[in-house]
């Protein structure tokens, strides 16, 4: 069966825009470098079940620009899920 391989240029381009986005148990690699934290939060709110109030961390730290911080290639963006309430 013939397979179609991505050209080196296409592969390189995909890696350039990849960000790891985390929320709770969910961890996905998405092509969102260049977008802001707020844009990712809004775009993936439903698919990743992101709380609108969840604290955002970029590479483990709160970004200085907050929701306007623009994500770079290979960044790790975590929306910190709140602790469970009930016991």
């Amino acid at each position, binding site marked *: 069966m013939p397979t179609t391989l991505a050209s080196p240029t296409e592969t390189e381009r995909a890696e350039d825009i990849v960000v790891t986005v985390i929320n709770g148990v*969910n961890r996905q690699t998405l092509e969102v470098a260049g977008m802001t934290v707020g844009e990712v939060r809004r775009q993936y709110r439903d698919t990743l079940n992101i709380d609108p109030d969840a604290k955002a961390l970029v590479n483990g730290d709160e970004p200085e620009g907050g929701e306007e911080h623009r994500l770079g290639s290979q960044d790790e963006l975590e929306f910190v899920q709140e602790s469970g309430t009930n016991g």
Partner: protein
Amino acid sequence: MTDRMSIVVIGIGGIGGWLLRPLLRYLNYEFDQPEVTLIDGDEFEPDNADRQNFSSLRNKAEEKAEAFRQEFSSLRIRSQPEYVTDSNVFRHIQPRTGVVFLSVDNHATRKLVSDRCEQIDDICLISGGNDYTSGNVQIHLTRNGDNVTLPIGNQFHPEIQQPEDANPGEQGCDEVVESEPQLLMMNHFIASLMLNAFERFVSQGGDGLYDEVYADCRANKTRPVSRS
């Protein structure tokens, strides 16, 4: 393992109820006469029967302590039928306390217990909470006065650092808190993760210990996180 161990379990509801039997069985066979104190100010009600085991409608801590004293006769199991509040937290969590299991239904009590554990040089606090299909377990370990892992009321969890809810032991009589629907499987999942954290602490201490674990029962997934 033959070290003496003093353990406090705060909250004997959906999570705490599932936690107790395997915890007590493990303690019974792995430790030398451990002391276990069960604390809860709440009573079992008929509505709890969809998620919790009990045989009489009475205080949760007293009911469970009595039942487990018969099942594990070599353990010293005490009960304290009251909520943990500002006025009694120093009595319930003392410097000699080794491990605190916290499975309550409000962040105000989590904050209170977190602050108390930060004052103790050597203690392990394992706190679990859940929403309907997700939840987390946090582990705060101190050694010689230093935090090995983060306190559960930390900068990443402002909902605990600045709780908006109220401690049930400090509410007025006319304040009624509506309980949210819960899923038995999620309570059981969190109880199991708390036990895993305890076994990890017992066997390996703080080496490489994670700060928290997220869980989702429908995805059947967990994710441990180290932030400290």
